[in-house]
């Protein structure tokens, strides 16, 4: 795969997904270039979380093709394993492991999945904790930390596996207002480092400053996508205008 750099790193091709009879994703076509930073927004229930959760197979699509870093996702365990090695994820509810210390949260996957020696995994973990400015809390348990600190640990945990793609599923939605900034700062720093990012968020200021492209979804469909400047200045679709007027003018 010598031309891998030119290929999109993620390619959705007519992807469909149902929950029972509910049609959650409808004919999704989306291709993401290496290093591209995409913000996905839309009303609740529009399928934005489902969309990014398909990328590491936390949700499986039922129709269409989804290719992540050259591997087509299917129920073949090898493909899922490969995707999960390339993709890191940050959740709305942090999902840190409460029975493990911060440091153990970060070394768990490197030692058990990548079979890294423990001291090497620890070094890598401490480096990531420095990066999110929380190294002094390494030996605490997650529930002793504030929400903002927990989410920064969760970002560091995902980065410990040196992923090529980061999925962020409403990373600031469960935070107290005073803590949103510290997490956004870490995310902005991350965005500056060339990693491919797919972020579901309602933080439009963040979207405007870091996104290469904004994808707007409604009712399981991609309504429109554009560079942030165009997206905010000249939304093409009536539905987009309505959504933006609700979240920008309050």
């Amino acid at each position, binding site marked *: 795969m010598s031309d891998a750099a030119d290929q999109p790193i993620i390619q959705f091709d007519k992807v469909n997904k149902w929950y029972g009879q509910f049609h959650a994703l409808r004919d999704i076509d989306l291709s993401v270039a290496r290093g591209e930073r995409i913000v996905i927004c839309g009303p609740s229930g529009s399928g934005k979380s489902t969309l990014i959760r398909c990328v*590491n*197979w*936390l949700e499986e699509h039922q129709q269409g093709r989804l290719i992540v870093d050259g591997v087509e996702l299917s129920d073949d365990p090898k493909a899922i*394993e490969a995707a*999960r*090695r390339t*993709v*890191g*994820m940050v*959740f709305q*509810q942090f*999902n*840190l*492991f*409460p*029975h493990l210390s911060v440091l153990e949260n970060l070394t*768990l*996957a490197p030692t*058990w*999945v990548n079979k890294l020696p423990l001291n090497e995994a620890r070094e890598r973990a401490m480096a990531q904790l420095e990066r999110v400015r929380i190294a002094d809390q390494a030996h605490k*348990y997650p*529930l*002793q930390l504030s929400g903002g600190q927990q989410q920064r640990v969760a970002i560091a*945990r*995902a980065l410990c*596996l040196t992923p090529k793609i980061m999925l962020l599923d409403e990373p600031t939605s469960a935070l107290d207002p005073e803590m949103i900034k510290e997490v956004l700062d870490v995310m902005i720093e991350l965005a500056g480092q060339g990693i491919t990012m797919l972020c579901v968020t309602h933080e439009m200021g963040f979207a405007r400053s870091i996104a290469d492209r904004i994808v707007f979804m409604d009712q399981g469909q991609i309504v429109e996508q554009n560079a942030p400047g165009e997206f905010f200045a000249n939304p093409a679709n009536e539905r987009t205008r309505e959504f933006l007027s609700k979240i920008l003018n309050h």
Partner: protein
Amino acid sequence: MSAVFTSIPARAAPLRMLGARPWIRTRLFPDWTNGAATVLIAALLAWFLPQLLDWALFNAVFSNDNAACRAVAHDAARPGACWGVITEKYRVILFGRFPHADHWRPLLASLILVLMLVASCRPRCWRRWLAPAWIAAFAAFFLLMRGGVAGLTYVETARWGGLPLTLLLATLGIAAAFPIAVLAALGRLSPLPAVRAACIGYIELVRGVPLISVLFMASFMFPLFLPPGMTPDVLLRVLAGITLFAAAYLAEVVRGGLQAIPVGQIEAAKSLGLGYWQTQRRIALPQALRHVVPAIMNSFISTFKDTSLVTVVSLYELTGALGLALRGDTDWRPFYFEAYLFIAIIYWTGCYAMSSYSHWVERRLAVSNQTTGNAR
């Protein structure tokens, strides 16, 4: 116009009233109903305790003097306990039909198990060598009990009895039931339909029958299905029955713990690339088991006491050995009550130790797994 924020310095909480008088007033006589209950209970104790002490200690016979025992038991004015029955029979109660001259063997075997149990409770001993140590302990136990080597006379399992049998059935039963229970619980939650059906079948079948019938099956029915001469030892069959029975109940306890794990935990483990077994071993089970420590200990205590049922298939553990000791002896048969008290104390000691240990484990987990932020 800007107001200045002045913070109020933190003050100490008002002191609790200390000393004997406030304690008595708040704990024993907070209002007239509780006060009346206190007086009533104190009166009952004052009436009952002296009689109990007279019976159990001051009028009791401690030597194995049968005539004195009968006299004190029939003395209506000053009734006393006949602890002599224990002085006379304790070896049969503790060791059953094991050859009398070799009683040091079951004694030593029991001590080995008790010492291992005590050692295993200490976090200092939670090391890799603990499992091999247990295997060695059980090997030593079987060697001592069975004999046939190193100059020890051979004693068949049918003659094992009393305390070592109770300890063996309880420890080996619990130790074997635990992993089976974890697997059955995981199986019942498995996405694979065949595995799930098999585990549901096993759990519901075993939970649907009383232990006594499982023991009867193991002891009498099971050999009928096997060619003669191929039947495993009765002790082994009964042990398997107890294990499978305890595991079915424990599996449901473990399943309850697993189902309480938030789905986000499992998703986080998946997103980090952990496989099914790694997720269960590192993420789900450690959290699930600490949620259900009290229920697990409940199961263990039940299993410990359930071992007394093996007496119905002619294995003479503590309860059975007691019957063995007194049933055929007309001199001592009247003093069943005192003998039952004796083994009741043994069972109670074991159960109380288990329950205290479980409380200790809970407190320890609460400290190491802080769930309420910096405040604690």
